[in-house]
């Protein structure tokens, strides 16, 4: 009996030691660099009514009262992938709350009506309000322009975005069509840009625009090619989560 117990004890000691070893060798965490995660496209199947479906969904978007948005733009060229990202709520006609990550700087912006504040380096300061904060007018303007180029729209496999299945359309638009109607830079056209690949995902539930991805390559003198990927997701359409409220830190700073 005692020798039996001894064997058993020995076996369990070895078992625990081996288990310990597996744990020891198993943990090797390391810093990972981000990799681009764009939806692949195949350009296999033409969607005959693609443009009308896309424009209808954008039209629908212009009717929204409030929504949330998040987007990320990555410079693919750079092996260290610096990025620009936004996260925020828009409540029409003039309320915005948005956090922006630009390289390694974090900025918050808050606006209601004519009063606006920005948060940089740990404190809020008065900012200039933006007129007409809404992403859909420019979507409409530029996608209508892109539709006029007659670029074929391709139907891609269905994707699940946030909370619903979406029909996925992919289209290659001449860069000038996207560049010339842009408002932020005054519609500057860059002669060496390659066509922009746009992937648009439209919800099956309400035909709302849910996600837009762009892949583009332009080239600038002295700098060379700049390849960008962007992903923009729209969510909480007309839901109370999208309400813009005064940030607590702003209230605190103003009261103190």
């Amino acid at each position: 009996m005692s020798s039996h117990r001894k064997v058993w004890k020995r076996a369990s000691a070895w078992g625990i030691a081996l288990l310990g070893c597996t744990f020891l060798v198993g943990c090797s965490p390391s810093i990972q660099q981000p990799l681009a995660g764009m939806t692949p496209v195949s350009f296999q199947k033409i969607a005959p009514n693609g443009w009308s479906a896309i424009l209808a969904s954008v039209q629908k978007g212009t009717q929204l009262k409030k929504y949330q948005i998040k987007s990320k733009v990555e410079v693919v060229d750079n092996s260290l992938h610096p990025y620009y990202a936004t996260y925020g709520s828009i409540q029409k006609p003039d309320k915005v709350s948005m956090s922006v990550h630009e390289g390694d700087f974090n900025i918050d912006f808050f606006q209601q009506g004519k009063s606006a504040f920005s948060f940089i380096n740990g404190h809020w300061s008065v900012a200039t309000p933006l007129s007409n904060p809404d992403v859909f007018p420019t979507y409409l303007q530029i996608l209508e322009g892109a539709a006029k180029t007659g670029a074929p729209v391709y139907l891609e496999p269905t994707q699940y975005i946030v909370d619903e299945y979406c029909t996925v359309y992919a289209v290659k638009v001449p860069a000038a069509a996207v560049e010339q109607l842009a408002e932020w830079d005054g519609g500057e056209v860059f002669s060496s840009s390659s066509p922009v690949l746009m992937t648009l995902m439209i919800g099956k539930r309400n035909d709302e625009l849910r996600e837009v991805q762009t892949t583009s390559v332009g080239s600038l003198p002295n700098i060379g090619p700049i390849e960008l990927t962007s992903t923009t997701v729209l969510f909480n359409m007309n839901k109370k989560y999208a309400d813009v409220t005064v940030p607590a830190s702003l209230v605190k700073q103003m009261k103190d």
Partner: protein
Amino acid sequence: MNPSKTSRRWMWLVYLLWALFVNGFNMWVIGPLVKDLALLGVIAVLLIILLWLTSIPAYARKKWITFTVFALLLGQGLSSVAFYPTDSRIIYSVIMLLGLFFLALFITKAGWRNILVSTLGILVATIWLPVSEWPFLTHFTIAKEGRMSLIPADIPALPWAVINGKNGQSLVTLSLAVPTKAQLKELASESTHSKNSLYNLLQSADHEYELVQIRHVGGHTEVRPLPPRDMGKIQPWDLISSTFPFAISHWKVVDNHVITYLSPTLDAESATSLGLEPVSYPGNFLALSQQAWDTDMSEWQEAVTTAGSSMVLPALEIHHNVLEGEWHGAPIHVPVKGQIVLSEGSFTSRGAHQVLVEGADILQVVDLNSQQVVGTYHATLTRGLPHNIVTGPLRQGGRDAIFVNATPAYILTVQKDGQFHLVYTAPNDSLRFEAVLQSKPSDPPEIITNDPSALRDVPTRYFTSYTYRQGQLYRNWRVYETNVVNVQPIQWVGGREDLAVSIYGSGEYLILRRSYLPVLPATAVAFVLICLVGFGLRIRERRSSRVQSS
């Protein structure tokens, strides 16, 4: 069994050698097995541990195992604080040394002299090179290892700019240089030249970097502030590319130090309104990049002029789609479709003098002798052309190939007639070509990459060398170091090519020189021998106990 007196006298040496060996064995054999071979590696490691455990004679088992754990803990512990600021490094090291020394003394009961010698041995070894960097030793000697003060949130890893000197090249990089209170006060009173200058100065005071030069003088390495008069010799792009286009680098010269700090390219309103027009990101970001570049360049030029330096311009540049400049005294004027000159080389035939030009989705080879474009490559949507391209020969003394770090990466060669050929596509999206190193004139060039394990389903990249043969890359070796970035070939000492690398997420850097010592085989043989000695001792122990009992 009683070890003889002489063997006892030399016991400290056995302890010391084992303490160092087990740290090396852990970095060179145990770690790599798991990192490369996943579950198979774990099983192999378990077998190795079993073999080792069973080779220890019973009377020494507790002592030897706890001592081994102590040696590993001390090695890892001292390396983990190796890059702390000097004062905290000393404090933590002393705490660790004392704590582990006394723990080891009481738990292992291996004798104070053995433990003291081993502790000191590990201390000296980690001061020479932290254990975490030992993986490089299997294929390199370390010409220089060091660390700049750097906040990874400002700049993710040390950038490299190269200056050509008479006796080889030197490196320029950044190091945090926080001004003293008195300096800051003085600078603040002088900050009057623009609307934001005082604000920028005060905001960025804790994030100021100075340019430092690492160079080889008289047989040793010297790290010194870059003399402002040498500013013009570097290409600013090399230093700003990792934060471009989201930050602007500002420069100033303070007491013969070149100081830089970053400010966001966009103010809050502008950054927000950019985000409210997501459909126009493609064009707007090009405009943003152009704006950032123009500001960066005017800041740089102003600083270079203030420093009394003058900018050394590249021999060949592209202006309005024309390659212009001078080559061997002859003026060059060739219309091209690209915007930048990537590199010089011999792409269509050996010995040809050519440059590689890149634009959006286009590569062109321009022959300098005949002054014409001799080959053009158009990228496709699925096989894009990023900025990140390495050139170098695939075969010994052969034509230069083009290593494109797209997702996935691929290799192009150019035929005599200017036709581009795709000769290799990476099997995964993570492989990145870093450099082509002609380390030994008699061997084929080594293609240095960072790429993941073929068996494990994780994108962790390791520093690896390949040789190209018939459409395939054959692995020469792999160093189990991840986060090796900004790999810069450098003629450190005239005549041979070394590699300067930075470690991502830290200010650490190494200058590596290829070595051909059989470190790995020697380690494996030593381990087997140690186990055999252990078994020998066990047999002797069993015999003597049998003799005693009979």
